[in-house]
């Protein structure tokens, strides 16, 4: 597989150097792999820190800036970052008001953030942690590592970040993050496998004419393989699966997310089908976001995330945000 890289070993560092050049409003520490908003720490504000394996861009570095993340720690491709990065990020953004770690529920992320939280607390930084686990494709949470963190990560980071920007104390920022995760569910499908730079060839074999239902964001195969479906059929399946699990009793924010290899033309067409199903299901839609936000390298496919919002969450969603990948208001 051809890739726009030099050598696999330097893809993350190369991308960070490029990000630093494109975004002077960010402070990018290429050697230590930490992306921090340049004005951090902001007096009186809770720091919101996330991180995870690379390969999901713009998550998380693209979401650093006023109104969202204070800092992000990119790991190797599809590999959780190490505790040293998280401690460094926490120290860089802590104004004394404490730091919230937003952790996607994967064994590696959880272990490394747990270790980092202990080390940061040893340095006198107050740390709270919120786990994102929105992927309904994982049904058997007793016999697995539990539901994965996927599209809802964007909602948690945006809404917790907006609360922090308003000056909310750590307990409240943490409570917002938990509420957003509790009220969010996702389901993803893959039309192609993913090629990691380290391997250079697709991680699994997905023949023409078939798709994977219930995929994560790391190129791992899904739970079920079927004959290729139309956009309409995929939307029916995905939205029903999410709605049956979330059982929304009020308006939702919709994220129609591309996995990195599907054109926006197709994503918008898919969104039309998603909105149709939601109307049929009588689920009111408050806001919709369409684009490649929580990706899986070059994978073709998409995910649907619904987040049921109340007045406060909707206000936080509409609040200004100034990041590389998400910006509105002000």
């Amino acid at each position, binding site marked *: 597989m051809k890739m726009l890289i030099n050598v*696999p070993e330097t893809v993350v560092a190369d991308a960070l150097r490029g990000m630093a050049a494109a975004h002077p409003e960010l402070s990018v520490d290429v050697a230590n792999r930490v992306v921090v908003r340049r004005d951090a720490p902001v007096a009186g504000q809770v720091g919101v820190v996330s991180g995870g*394996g690379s390969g999901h861009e713009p998550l998380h570095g693209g979401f650093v800036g006023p109104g969202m993340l204070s800092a992000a720690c990119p*790991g*190797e*491709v*599809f*590999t*959780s*970052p*190490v*505790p*040293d990065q998280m401690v460094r990020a926490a120290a860089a953004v802590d104004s004394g008001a404490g730091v919230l770690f937003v952790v996607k529920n*994967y*064994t*590696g992320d959880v*272990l*490394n953030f747990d*270790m980092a939280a202990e080390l940061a607390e040893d340095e006198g930084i107050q740390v709270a942690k919120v786990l994102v686990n929105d992927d309904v*494709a*994982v049904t*058997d949470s007793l*016999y*697995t*590592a539990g539901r*994965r963190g996927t599209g809802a990560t964007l909602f948690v980071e945006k809404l917790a970040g907006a609360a922090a920007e308003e000056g909310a104390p750590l307990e409240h920022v943490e409570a917002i993050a938990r509420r957003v995760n509790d009220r969010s569910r996702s389901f993803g499908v893959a039309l192609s496998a993913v090629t*990691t730079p*380290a*391997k250079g060839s697709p*991680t*699994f074999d997905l023949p023409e004419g078939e798709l994977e239902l219930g995929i*994560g964001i*790391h*190129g*791992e*195969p899904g*739970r079920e393989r079927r004959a290729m479906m139309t956009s309409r059929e995929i939307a029916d399946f995905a939205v029903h699966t999410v709605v049956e699990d979330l059982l929304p009793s009020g308006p939702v924010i919709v994220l129609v997310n591309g996995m990195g290899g599907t054109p926006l033309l197709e994503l918008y067409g898919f969104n039309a089908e998603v909105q149709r199903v939601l109307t049929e299901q009588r689920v009111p839609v408050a806001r919709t976001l369409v684009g490649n936000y929580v990706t899986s390298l070059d994978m073709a496919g998409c995910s649907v995330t619904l987040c049921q919002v109340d007045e406060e969450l909707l206000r936080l969603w509409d609040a200004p945000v100034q990041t590389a990948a998400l910006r509105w208001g002000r």
Partner: protein
Amino acid sequence: MTDQKPDRTLDTDFFRRWLTAATAMVEREAGRLTELDSAIGDADHGSNLQRGFRSVMTELGRESPDGPGAVLVMAGRQLISTVGGASGPLYGTLLRRTGKALGDAPEVTAEQFTEAFRAGVAAVAQLGGAKAGDKTMLDALEPAAEALGTSFGAAAEAAEKGALATVPLQARKGRASYLGERSIGHQDPGATSSALLVAALADTAEATP
């Protein structure tokens, strides 16, 4: 294979040579580990361990940790700081806790090492929340820790057997668990690399008079 002499002594150099042998083994098998990981994971186990063990070698060259315990604690910390993912904290904890249990003696007996290694394996089980049969590193490490009481060679054999025995298992921890029944029929990459680590230990013991 000869039975272990429980009072056989192992010095600092033994542990340095173990880590050097493990690094060579990881370098040689990185491709296979990544291949196994691409079937039921995310295709990076080999390259992640390669990065970690290379940095252990660099650090060993720079620093001269004094005593078997210090060598393993340093290696464990280095893995935690460079590997990432789940294997960083898990392998790091295995070596760090084994090292801590060895204390600061300049030499340890094979019996003391066996006890310390068992403490390291128990720490891995506690950190990851997995048990034998979940299709993880522990399926190689637990039988190895058990057999280490007999000999280093027996431990390597038990680990290898344990890794092979993960093939028919369904993963219940880690990223492979998301596959459900589709994880059956593949050898666990973590159990495989764990077996390599124990094989390197046996090779080192074999080469030590």
